[in-house]
């Protein structure tokens, strides 16, 4: 039973860029979400079909939820938050499908052929969660500058009115970096630990016993997507609050 913390490289794109197995799954999920979005957009009718009904009610519910937290800036921030939610939810759920980790491909490595898994849950790769965390925090800074202006934003970090405020400003800078780490490790740790747990369960007793663990993994996957988006909008709300 082989578990590796890092995603394994299975090929190269144009001979330069390494392609790992979680990157392959990322492309597939991106294509699925894109096709789903386009199908809903071009299928809009006055009398809605069932898929359009479902999407409309979900949109209304989540828009009101984000509006309850943010208020007037919801229009600009909502697409970001819901995209994070959908991407992470689809990725986590797709990692539980049969075929992840069991379909292998032969890779020539240092002269000998080795069978590596072709698919791997995309959020179980620290590169992807780190990239998502970077996008979240950088867009957080962009939204703060856009909503409260550059002067107030800099005043939050560099503040010479009193020694204590100066120290608090430095702490704020450090806390931005720690937010990146905490975002990425929370998502990575939850999904990767779930994968290890499922591997061990399948290895020990392949019949009936893994069922409650798979249910727990589905719940944890959706919960982590929700928590990621919720933390994203709450951090924006905190960073535009006046003292």
């Amino acid at each position, binding site marked *: 039973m082989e578990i590796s913390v890092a995603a394994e490289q299975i090929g190269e794109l144009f001979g330069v860029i390494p392609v790992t197995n979680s990157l392959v799954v990322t492309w597939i999920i991106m294509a699925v979400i894109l096709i789903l979005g386009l199908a809903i957009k071009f299928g809009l009718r006055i009398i809605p079909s069932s898929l359009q009904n479902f999407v409309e009610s979900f949109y209304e519910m989540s828009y009101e939820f984000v509006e309850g937290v943010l208020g007037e800036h919801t229009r600009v921030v909502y697409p970001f938050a819901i995209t994070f939610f959908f991407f992470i939810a689809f990725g986590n759920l797709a990692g539980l499908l049969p075929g992840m980790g069991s379909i292998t491909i032969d890779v020539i490595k240092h002269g000998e052929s080795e069978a590596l898994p072709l698919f791997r849950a995309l959020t179980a790769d620290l590169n992807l969660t780190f990239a998502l965390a970077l996008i979240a925090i950088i867009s957080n800074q962009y939204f703060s500058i856009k909503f409260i202006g550059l002067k107030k934003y800099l005043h939050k970090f560099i503040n010479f009115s009193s020694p204590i405020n100066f120290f608090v400003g430095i702490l704020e800078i450090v806390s931005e970096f720690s937010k990146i780490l905490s975002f990425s490790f929370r998502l*990575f*740790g939850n999904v990767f630990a779930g994968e290890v747990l499922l591997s061990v369960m399948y290895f020990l007793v392949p019949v009936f016993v893994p069922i409650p663990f798979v249910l727990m993994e589905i719940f944890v996957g959706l919960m982590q997507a929700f928590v990621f988006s919720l933390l994203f909008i709450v951090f924006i709300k905190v960073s535009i609050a006046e003292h």
Partner: protein
Amino acid sequence: MEPQAIAGLTIAIGGLGPAIAIGLIASKAMEAIGRNPEATSKIQTNMVLGLAFAEAIAIYSLVMALILKFV
């Protein structure tokens, strides 16, 4: 000490603090819901927020234990 024992101890000790923290957060949230059932959804949202922060610490120590065992 053998490496297996160290990996086990990492997650055992590292999960103690967050477990107590999650218990405290949830119990205070339950108390608040009991006093004021109308504000349930607001309290629930903020409780989930607090739970995510507390659980993240346990996840850090879990990732550490996994790295110690598999790398």
